[in-house]
Every structure is written in structure tokens, then in C-alpha cells.
């Protein structure tokens, strides 16, 4: 029996449940990201809901929802009126007032022919084109129908369109990352590739320097006894608790002071920001490296020490080759932390040329006039590529295993 299971044919069935489970978990967990990826293909995407086309005309659910909300409100009003001692007539008067007001603003479903026309013509159109065509088409219908459609399509107060309807699939948003141009805003070229490079530069700088600094420190912390060792480690950990909202201001001042003396390290510079990331990231990373050092048995370096090797030689020739997995982990973690950091990048960098990717992209989401959600989605999907690539490159090192190397 055991032999049959070890047979290559049976292997597939043995692992099948695991695969099914993993795929299911991945689908559920990564649904928002799949959504984000899909949203990147829609050029004129609102933030809210493209899977179910809530932005199109054909949706009656929103209208129904609003209706039910009114009736609930009416119920509460009725109860309160009864408790307050109003008469039946007064109650009906009050509730009908509210209903009239609310019902007037709620869109109902369109007639079938109108719906068909909008389905046919409303898709793949920009707002102005659509309005133009709509006006032309309206002339062919009867006056009453035109009025009805108007009342359903436009807000009665400010005549704005009630629903968004432009949905168009293309690669435009993904191209935006390289061209920096949005068709709807023809005059502006966003320096998005520059932002991307800024982020890459900062993350690369931070991860390299961080790893070097941290491994050196962790080596000493793990292998030597010296004054202030325990206390230092404790303090490093507890520093994390300090509110970042407070350190924001202090770091801003510190960088301005530094910038007065050494301008390239000051406020609004990439290196200044990277230095801040270095300082912030060190505590956790030291602990990662130190934990790894602790798993390396003493016997490995003992012989070298007996041979008279200096500490530095031991570190370079004996430890460094063994440290490959943890160095990869450190590079990955500090790269991601620096690449994705938002708050300090927002505060410490003001010039648009020096923006990092998250800060720059948040502008597309926070823009008050229009939400370029498609662009936001596409750019954040492309922006995640460096990290995934880095992970693919380094995961072999991480998985390669320390103990195997140590034993050999």
C-alpha cells in the first residue's frame, strides 16, 4: 500500500486536496487584488463597483434600496408621532411630506427601449459624446418620454448625470505608467516613471545599507558580551511603541537642520528620506538577523578563532556565506518597507519631482474633481512588479536553508 502511494501516478492525488485548498484560499484572499487588476482595464472607472455594473443604467437595485430605506424611516416617524400624541391625520400629512420629497429624487427604471438604446450607445463612450448623442436621440422620441428620461437620468437639482455609465476596456491605464498621459487630461504629462524610479532608488538604497548595517550589528549582539547589551536590545524593541505622529514633526525639524548644513541630506531629498527609513527600520531587522545568528552553532567559528582569525575575518569568511537566507529576508523586508511607506514620504517630501509612488498615486484617488481609479489600479498593479520580481529572485536563497550549510 505504501509503495503505491509513493508511485508517481498517485502523487498527484495525494497533493490534490492541498492544491485545491491553496487555490481556494488564494482566490478568496486575493479577490480585492484581482478586482484591482481588472479595474485597471477600464479607462473611465469610478471607485465604486465595476463587477456588477452599478454605474450603468440597467441597475434597478439602487432605486429599490432607496425605497426600502424610506419606508423604514416612515415607520420610525409613525412610532414617534404616535408616542408624541399626534392624531392620525397629522401623522399621514407628515409622512407624505417626507415621501414626496424623497421620492422625487429617486430614479426609477427606464423603459425597455430607452434601456436598450443606452446599453447600445452608452457603453464605450465618454460623457460629452454620450450627452450629445442622447440629445439627438431624444428628438426622435415623444416629448413625454423625453421628459421622463430626463427626470431619471439627471439630478433634478443640479442637472448632473445620476449614474456613471462610461465603461471601456483597454490597455490605456497600463500604458499610462510609461507614457504618463491620460486621454481625458490631454495637457498634462505626469512624471510617473520618475516617481517609480524615485521609489526604486530609495528602496534599493535603504535595503542595501540596512542589510549591511544590521548584519554587522547583529553579529556583535549575537556573539559577544559587552556592557549595555541586554538593555540596548530591550530599548530597541520598546522604541517601536513611540507614536509616529509625534516623531513626524521631530524628524521634519531634524531634516531641515541637517539640510542647512548638508543640503543633499536635508528635507525634500531622496537620501534624507532614505536615512529616516534606515533609522526606523533598524530595530526589527536587527532582531531578525540576531535570531538567525543565534541558530548558528558555536562550533562553526571556534576552529577559526583557535587558528587566530580576527573578528572581522570570522565575520567575512565564515558567517557571510552562511547568512545568505537572512540577508535575502532582510533585503526583501526593508525593500518592501521603504517602497511602500506612505506617511513619512507624504510629510518629508514636498516637491513633485521627488514624490514616491504611493504618495503620487494617492493623488489619483484623492483628487476631488475626478477619481482616476482605473489609473490608480493599473499603476499600483505595475508598481508591485519590482517586489514580486525581487521575491522571485531571492526566495531560492531564503528557502535554500541555513542548517544544511551549517552542517556541511
Amino acid at each position, binding site marked *: 500500500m505504501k509503495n503505491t502511494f509513493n508511485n508517481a501516478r498517485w502523487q498527484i492525488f495525494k*497533493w490534490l486536496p492541498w492544491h485545491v485548498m491553496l487555490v481556494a484560499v*488564494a482566490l478568496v484572499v*486575493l479577490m480585492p*487584488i484581482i478586482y484591482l487588476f481588472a479595474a485597471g482595464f477600464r479607462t473611465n472607472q469610478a*471607485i*465604486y*463597483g465595476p*463587477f456588477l455594473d452599478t454605474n450603468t443604467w440597467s441597475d434597478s*437595485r439602487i432605486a429599490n434600496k432607496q425605497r426600502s430605506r424610506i419606508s423604514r424611516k416612515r415607520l*420610525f416617524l409613525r412610532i414617534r408621532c404616535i*408616542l408624541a400624541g399626534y392624531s392620525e391625520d397629522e401623522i399621514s400629512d407628515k409622512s407624505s411630506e417626507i415621501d414626496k420629497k424623497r421620492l422625487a429624487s429617486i430614479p426609477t427604471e427606464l423603459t425597455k427601449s430607452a434601456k436598450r438604446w443606452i446599453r447600445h450607445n452608452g457603453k464605450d463612450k465618454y460623457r460629452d459624446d454620450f450627452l450629445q448623442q442622447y440629445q439627438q436621440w431624444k428628438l426622435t422620441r415623444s416629448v413625454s418620454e423625453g421628459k421622463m428620461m430626463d427626470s431619471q437620468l439627471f439630478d433634478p437639482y443640479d442637472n448632473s448625470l445620476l449614474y456613471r455609465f462610461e465603461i471601456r476596456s483597454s490597455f490605456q491605464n497600463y500604458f499610462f505608467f510609461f507614457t504618463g498621459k491620460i486621454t481625458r487630461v490631454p495637457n498634462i504629462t505626469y512624471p510617473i516613471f520618475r516617481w517609480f524610479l524615485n521609489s526604486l532608488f530609495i528602496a534599493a538604497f535603504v535595503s542595501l545599507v540596512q542589510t*549591511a*548595517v544590521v548584519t*554587522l*550589528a547583529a*553579529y*556583535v549582539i549575537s*556573539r559577544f558580551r559587552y556592557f549595555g547589551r*541586554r538593555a540596548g536590545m*530591550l530599548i530597541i*524593541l520598546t*522604541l*517601536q511603541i*513611540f*507614536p*509616529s*505622529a*509625534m516623531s513626524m*514633526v*521631530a*524628524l521634519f525639524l*531634524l531634516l531641515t537642520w541637517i539640510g542647512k548644513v548638508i543640503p543633499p541630506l536635508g528635507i525634500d531629498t531622496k537620501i534624507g528620506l532614505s*536615512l*529616516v527609513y*534606515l533609522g526606523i527600520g*533598524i*530595530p*526589527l531587522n536587527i*532582531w*531578525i538577523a540576531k*535570531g*538567525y545568528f*543565534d*541558530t548558528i552553532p558555536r562550533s562553526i567559528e571556534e576552529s577559526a*578563532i583557535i587558528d587566530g582569525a580576527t*573578528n572581522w575575518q570570522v565575520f567575512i569568511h565564515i558567517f557571510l556565506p552562511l547568512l545568505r*537566507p537572512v540577508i535575502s*529576508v532582510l533585503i*526583501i523586508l526593508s525593500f518592501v518597507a521603504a517602497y*511602500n511607506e506612505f506617511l513619512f514620504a507624504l510629510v518629508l517630501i514636498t516637491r513633485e519631482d521627488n514624490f514616491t509612488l*504611493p504618495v503620487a498615486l*494617492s493623488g489619483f484617488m484623492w483628487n476631488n474633481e475626478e477619481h482616476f481609479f482605473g489609473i490608480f489600479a493599473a499603476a*499600483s498593479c505595475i*508598481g508591485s512588479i519590482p517586489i*514580486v520580481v525581487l*521575491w522571485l529572485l531571492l*526566495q531560492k536563497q*531564503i*528557502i535554500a536553508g*541555513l542548517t544544511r550549510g551549517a552542517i556541511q
Partner: protein
Amino acid sequence: MMKKKIENLLQRLHDQNLIVKTIVIITLLFIAVFSSLILFLYFNAWISALLLLVALLLVILLILVKKLRIYTYILPAAFLLLLFSGFPIVYTVMISFSNFKVGHIISHDDALKNLLTSQWHVDKRHKPFYAEVYAPGSIVAQYSELYEKRVSPLDDQLDAIIDADLSERIEDIVWDRRDRVELSIIRNTFEQSVLEDMVIILYSESHIAANISEKKKKRVVVYSYIPGVDAAGDTLKCHKTSLSKINSLIGDRICIGDLIYERPSVEQFDRIELTLLPHFAERLRATGENEYDPLPLEFPNGTIYRLDYGTRFLVKLPFYRRVDGRGNILEKMVVNDDGTYHYGRIIQADNYLGSYVTTKNDETPRHWQEYRIKTPDYIVFPWFWWAYHKSHAIAYLDTNRSRTGLNQKIRECFPANIKDIITGRPIDDVSKIEIRQLQHSIKKANKVIRDFNKTRYGKNGIKQYFVSGFGEWGLGFPKLGQIKLVKIDKSNVKRSLAPGYRVFTGIRGYKKIVLSRKMTESFFRLLIWTVIFATLTVALSFMAGLGLASILNKPGLHAKNFYRSIFILPYAIPAALLIMMWAAFLNKDFGVINNLINLDIPWISNIYLSKMSAVVINIWLSFPYFMIICLGSLQSINPELYDVSSVDGASSSQQFWRITLPLVLRNTAPLLIGYFGFTFNNFTLIYLLPGKGTGILVTFIYSLAFYGKEYGLAASLGVITFFVIGPFLALQFVLSGVLKGEVLRE
């Protein structure tokens, strides 16, 4: 022999790297001295210079002394840590002992300087004076020449620009050019004319109003500055002049700008319409390139007027004449609440508030505490306390209160002269006997209130009670609270002036937080939620990460790389962007999730659900981190352990619980604690996810500092948080036993 010795020496040098060491030390010494000198001499920052010098000398010491040499390995990390994690903390602790907030940012000296050279206010009580400025003919001719020139070169340039087809930039260039030309004109003409001989005639508004009678017009009194006579001194002294003398004063000078007052004799002269004039003084002041002192004119009564706009002369409102030896008391104070001014009030430095203040009767500023009897509050116990409107219940209670004469009863409990006993007396002056009496009468009054609360809704009252207690969302039980004896802050400060300064306030900020019930309540409520939030996040995402990692670590599983790369995605996309995305998804009316399931679930607008979604989103964001950590950590477990245990007959679940989990936990315990700290301060998540009731301590501190503008108070709250949570973390850290299994070298 000699050769051998030299060889020996060289060998020794080589062994100890002496040459390298000396070079390093000399360069370090050089850098230390040089940079600290630069800091000291050019930036006048002697503290930083000293710190730098000491730090670099310490580094040299570390290199020189063999015993301390291992410290050099930690040096870069320690330096970065101290500078970018340590400094903010030290700074914040320093700030927490001061009154640092908006309006109290600058130092004492700067605040004084700011006050002395502060803004110019329009004098509202005295109407401003209007001026006619008469300049000699030659200067005006020069001016007009320049004025005409101003236009012509620009036109040439415009043509050139249009030829070059740079139509976008034309406007910029034009404006840039014009500004520069204007400035040169002003420098060439107006400044000269002030210094040489110019006549300025000032009319008050009442003199030149259109509707005054002819009779009055004849008696117009004007002030005039006569050149040559009064030129000495800081200010130009003005004299009272009668209207008839003006023509002789003016002579053959020409009026610059508008004529304020119509006179036939003046109109005969050539007059230049200076459209420039109304703005140039202001512009000169705004450029800051040259310190332009706008024409100080002193009147016989001592007030000083200065040119504000071209033809308008205004009093500089807060005008200080003298500062005493210590720089504390200034002779005069000017600004009233309505923006008018008057002289005679002394302004003094108040080091308690950290600003310059005026006091009642010009006393020295004092701050003290007084007793006050706090009137009873309304207490409402609603069923649905989060959505309850108190007003209904309170209104009902109020009517009852007046109907039953409760107020009168309470008043009878106190002595008649209660107000005289405590008001205006610092708490130290009130004797213990008096306080005891007060407390006794408060006890009596509280008993009356308690009786009122008990009897209020008796047999008949219950129905009324239910009706009245019904708010918008449910029932409430209104009650009257107790009377309390409280301390209130008092001072004799009447008004504090705008730019305050930073002062050391000691533990006042901490006291404010600890003694204020509102503050402590919200602090602990937030603290509990923050701890729950952080713990849940760390525990659950660690579990998720470890689970995934151990599945993905199984030998024999296909497509491991694919799964690993897939699961890292939530970590790969910037968290801030994903949080913003989630905030849109969870919207109640339009969010994707509610549309998908076709329901109206208030994901982030209900206080409980929003907390839940914050935790879930945070787990979703952070489980890949733990997956990476655990993948690395699982590798460090010796595979022999599994082999041995499986030989002994341990099942795979037993292996997981007995071998994998403890070993991974021991390796990652500090990371878990560190990540707890990170989540404790996860400002980005809470800030960008606008949930109701998800606020954690950092966001509270943030809003206190930046919206409430109480930076010092926020700093003290931060420090308190640090000292409340820090010890727990340290204890947790020690208990986790990370330090036990260390491989230390002697």
C-alpha cells in the same frame, strides 16, 4: 640586526593595521574639529557642534581601545538609530514639558522681536490721514520719463516674443519684467525725493469730506512736514499748519498722485496721475530685498504715523517705546479687542502662559486656582447609548426640576453668601474649616438631589417617564447628577498678544491629562482598543502566515514558487493604496462588497463593524510579512528533529505543535513583539480608513497635535503611552525567553 628590527617593526605594523588606523584617526580628528568649527562659526549651533565633537572623539576612542573595539560594529546601526529613532523621542519628551503649540513655537527673544516689528493695523478709531505728496519739479520730470520708458521696452520685447512664438509664456515674462522696472523707478525717484525736499500735507478724513460746510472748510487745520527744518532725528516731525499757508509751503513743487483736497491754486500745476503709487510702498515691504522704512511722521502729541498706501498714513498700532533691562516690561500697550488702540496699558512677559500679556490694573500677571461649586449634570442611561439623543429626556427633567422647586431647595442648603466665600480667593487662602462647611452643605444638597431622582418617577410618573424618555432611537433614563466642589484656574490676565513663545511648563501638561476625567477616560478606552487591535492583528496574522508557510514548506508540493509569489501580493502593493481601495470597497451605499451581496451593511460606519473590518484589513495586509518570516524561520529548524521524532512515532500534527511552533515562536518572538509595536502605531491604516470608532492612540494624539493644535499636550500623551505600554513589552520580551538560548563568546 638593524634590518631585522625594521622588518619586525613593519611586520607588527602590518599585523595591527597601524598605518590604516592612524590615517583613519587623523582624518576623523580632522573632520571632528573642522566640522564642529564650521557648525559653530557659520551656523552658530554650539550644541550640535559640541555633540558632534564628542561623538567623533568617542569613535576615535572606540578604535584606539582594543577592549571597546567590538562597539565599532554596532556603531553605524546605533548612530542611525539614535539619530532617527532616538532624537524624535528625546525631542518629544522635551516638548512635552513645554507649552509648544500653535502660536507658541518661537523663542522668547523672537516673540519680542516679532511684537516690536509686528504688523501694521488700520487705525479704526481715528480715521486715517490722507496725504498729498509734493515733490520738486525735476524729480517728477525724471519720474515721468522713467514711467514712459517702462512701457516702451516691454512692447519691443513683446513683439520679439510673439515672433518667437512662445505664446504660452508671454504673460510671465511681461509681469516679471514690469515688476523689476517698477522697482527701479521707485528707487530712483521716490527715495530721493524723501531725502531731499518734499512737502507732505496731511488731511484727516473729516476735513476733506464732501458734505462739510463752506464755513468749516475755511477752518481746515492740516499737518505738514516742512523739509529742512525738522529733518533731523528718526522721524519726520509734523506741525500744525493753517490752510492759508499751504500754498506758500508748496511753492513750485508738483503733486505726485491724487489731489486729496481741491484748491484752485494747486490745480494750475501739472499733475501726474500715478497709478503706481498706491501699491509701491507695500510691494517694497513685501519683497524684503531692502529694508524699507515707510516714512515715519511724528505728530505733536507723540503718535507716530507711517505710510501705508500711497496716500494714506496710518498709526502703527502696537507701538512700543521702551523695554526694561531684562526685556520684560514694555512701557505701552495698544491693541483692544475690537482692533482699536489706546496707550497706557503695560504689557508684560508672562512666563506661565508663555506670551506677552496685559493685566487688570497693570498688575504683574498671576495665576491661581479657586474653588467652584459645579452645578449638577444630567445623566442619561440610554438603552442604545451610541445613537441616543439626550435632549428629550433632559427637557422633561428640566420642567420637573422647576416645578418641584428643586433649585430653591438646593440653594437653601448653602449659606447665603456662598459666592463671596469662595470667589476671588486662591485655594490656599481658604481655611480648612470653611472647606469642611462647604463640603457639608454640598452633602446636604446632594441628598436633596438623590431624593429628587428617587421620587421623580413614582406610581404616576412612570408613564410620563417612558414617553418623555423616548428619543429618536430608544429609551433613556434621565437623572440629575451630583454637585461637586471643583478647582478652576484663574488669572488676572486680560489679553495675551499674538506671537507667544515657548516656555518650560514642567509637568503641567501631564497634570492636565491625568486630572482631567475626560482625558483619562478616552485615553484608557483608546488604549484598550489599541491593545486589542494590535494583539488580534499580530496573533491572527502570525497564525495565518505560519499556516501558509508550513503548507508551502512541505516537501513534494508542486508549484511552490507560484503560490509563494501569489500570496505575497497584498504585501507587494503599497499598503496605503490598498487601504484607500478598501475604504472605497467598504462604503455602505456604493461599495463593491455591499453591491455584491445586495445588502446595506455599514462596514465602516458602525462602530463595532468598523473595528472588525479594521482588524480584518490589517490582517490581510500583514499576513505575507509573517509568511516570509516564518518561511525563513522554518528553514532554520534542523530537519533531523523531524526524522528522529517520526521514528519515535510522532504524528505530523504532534510534530507541528511540539517542534515547529515552539521553535518558530522562539525565533520570531522579538519580531512579534516588534510588530505589535508597529501595529500599535499603525497610523496609516486608521488614518486612511475613515471608519467610525476605529481611532487608536496614535490617531488621537495626531488629531490632538494637528487639529487641536496642542502639540505639547499631545507629546505628553505620547510619553505617557510610552511609559504605560513600554514596561509590558519589555516584560513580555524577557518572559519570552529569547535571551536564554544565546551562543555567546566570552
